[in-house]
């Protein structure tokens, strides 16, 4: 424990800027993955353990597209759209068959998909780690703001993630499709009875969830190593975010992801040897005081 360092950091503008921006970037990338997870759970009550695979494949799609076209924009689009389509296929052909069955069957399907696609990645891209490399446009020195260091690339990622959060929030709150999704989360039978095509709706939810995870994988590809099985650690943290934020709440997962990023970022200064424990500790406190999570609804 190094409280002096933490106090020193909080009272220095440079350290505050660096740590806050790094906490934001860690948190917002996590939010993109967790948002899909929580959306799928909210509407379908399916805990999608294969969500890490979406993230991994998104990164690999982006890598191949980047190598082929040399355009990071195309790479990100490929990761996002590709995984959106993959999400639809996954929903239609696999997980939809297990709706309403017990959770173990869903778990089994998801785990099978994780194992199969880890091996597919090994066959297609190889078992060794891969690295995309920073696109030339972002190979620039970082900004120094008030003595703190802020990388331009991360500013772009933060911007994209915040824009996604905004679009998602507005779409759910104010559009017809969003209202249907929220209605389906509360009472799917009634939505179906009203003549709304829930099959299409569920596929759409998986498309958005898959697309978001793929987007996160693609956005992070220039700085993170790509390995088969890379989705696993991201999945664990995303679950922590969804649990803290409240299963099914997009706003909750945004707040929880940013909180997690900040705990990591400032925790590493003040409590370098037990940052992970801080995160789990925080989760325990939330679960004891608010068992449904920060923004979770009471289950009726």
């Amino acid at each position, binding site marked *: 424990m190094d409280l002096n*360092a933490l106090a020193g*950091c909080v009272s220095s503008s440079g*350290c505050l800027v*660096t*740590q806050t921006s*790094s906490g934001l*970037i*860690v948190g917002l*990338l996590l939010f993109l993955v967790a948002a899909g997870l929580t959306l799928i759970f909210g509407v379908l009550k399916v805990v999608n353990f294969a969500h890490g695979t979406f993230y991994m494949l998104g990164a690999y799609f982006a890598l191949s597209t980047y190598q082929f076209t040399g355009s990071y924009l195309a790479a990100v689009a490929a990761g996002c759209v590709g995984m959106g389509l993959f999400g639809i296929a996954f929903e239609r052909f696999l997980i939809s068959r297990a709706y309403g069955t017990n959770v173990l069957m869903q778990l089994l399907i998801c785990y099978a998909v994780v194992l199969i696609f880890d091996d597919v990645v090994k066959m297609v891209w190889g*078992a*060794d*780690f*891969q*690295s*995309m*490399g*920073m696109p030339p446009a*972002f*190979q620039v*020195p*970082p900004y120094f703001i008030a003595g703190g*260091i802020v*990388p331009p*690339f*991360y500013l772009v990622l933060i911007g994209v993630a915040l824009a996604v959060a905004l679009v998602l929030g507005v779409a759910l709150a104010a559009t017809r499709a969003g209202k249907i999704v929220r209605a389906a989360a509360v009472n799917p039978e009634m939505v179906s009875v009203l003549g709304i095509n829930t099959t299409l709706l569920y596929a759409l939810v998986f498309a958005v969830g898959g697309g978001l995870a793929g987007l996160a994988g693609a956005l*992070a590809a*220039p*700085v*993170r*190593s*790509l*390995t*088969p099985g*890379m989705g696993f*650690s*991201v999945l664990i943290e995303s679950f922590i975010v969804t649990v803290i934020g409240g299963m099914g709440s997009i706003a909750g997962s945004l707040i929880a992801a940013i909180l997690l990023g900040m705990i*990591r*970022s400032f*925790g*590493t*200064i003040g409590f*370098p*040897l037990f*940052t992970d424990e801080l995160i789990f500790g925080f989760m325990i406190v939330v679960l004891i005081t608010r068992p449904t999570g920060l923004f979770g609804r009471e289950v009726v």
Partner: protein
Amino acid sequence: MRTMDGSGLRRRTLLAGAAGALAVPRIGRAQQNTVKVGMQSIISGAIALLGTSSRNAAQMAIEQVNAAGGLAGRKIELVVRDSKGQPQEAARIARELVNSDGCEILLDAEASSGAFAVQEVVRDLGVLCIHTASETSSLTADPKIRVATAFRCARQGVQDAIVGGGYTAKQATARKMTRFATCSPDYAYGRDTTKQYLDFIKHFKPDIQVIAEVWPKLGQPDFTDAITRLIQAKPQAVFSLLYAGDLSSFVNQGNVYALFTQVAMFNPNMGDYPVLNAIKAMPQGSYSGVRYLETFPDTPRNKEWGEAYRKRFNEYPTNWSWQMATAVAFLDAAAKKAGAADGKKMAQALPGLTIDSPFGVNGKITMREDHSIADYAIGWGNTVPKPPYIVDIQPGDWGEITELETEWKKKNGYV
């Protein structure tokens, strides 16, 4: 030459097994014209690249020996098996290679966990074995673990730490650096080896202070918290043992923060082609140990060997490749000295044997009495973003290495 991948039971294996049960093959084998050399390595999984590069080097070297007449007149037949990096599987395969496949010599290309398991099989069977990948010093340094017929043709952790410690201290003195931080993976290798390097760095430069330790988890996707912590601690240098994908993530994410313009990184693990080719933006002005480079030692023979390997397999050789090639060269020399391709006699011929080698610091490598090699090229240099990636390489002094290694052995009760 035949290679056999996979470990499925085949008719031939069964037949050989049955023959083994009758306990007659040893007599029959001695009259055979070929000598079977068994090799097990990690040919599938995350570090399959290293195992494959070992196998390639073995094939290339054995073809050369065979073209020159073979091992004391007997052609070598290489039998390769995949252990998938699992120690119990490595031990099982080693036993099977000898007992069922009739191999008289083993080339063990396993990481340390597998090598220690194979060592016990070798002790039991009394077969000649050369370990070509394990770097854990105690495998040959500890007399309790040493085996009369087992040798090591690979760099050793303690030797790397001595050279790395000396080099780091020298650079730190030249650049007036005393404030160090560490950033190594959070498990036994990372923690133990970091301590070993720091001990030697402090031996050469006692005023080094370690002001921050960062221990990222193995395979963690994001190093931002580690990087920003290093930035806040304001060290002058970072000593790191990160490797492979973690090293690549750390370097890429560190570049985003311009970390390596603020601190000098010392990392022994960068100087191997798979890493150099994968890291897209090698930082300028960091320091790394050389594991294998065609430019070190900077001799025509080394360059020729590297180019031949690349032409043949369409990929770069690795640290495991030169070590395997050296092991085959030692087998050849030992058979010549012993006058027969006989494992027992070759094992007696090996200690003290010196061979010409493209990988020796002065063109020669010696198998020491403690069953491990000396005088191989070991050195550190500056990193640059473009090939040859590491320049101004300073070779370690083997006189000093031997002296400090002996001291280290005494301290650990090995001599």
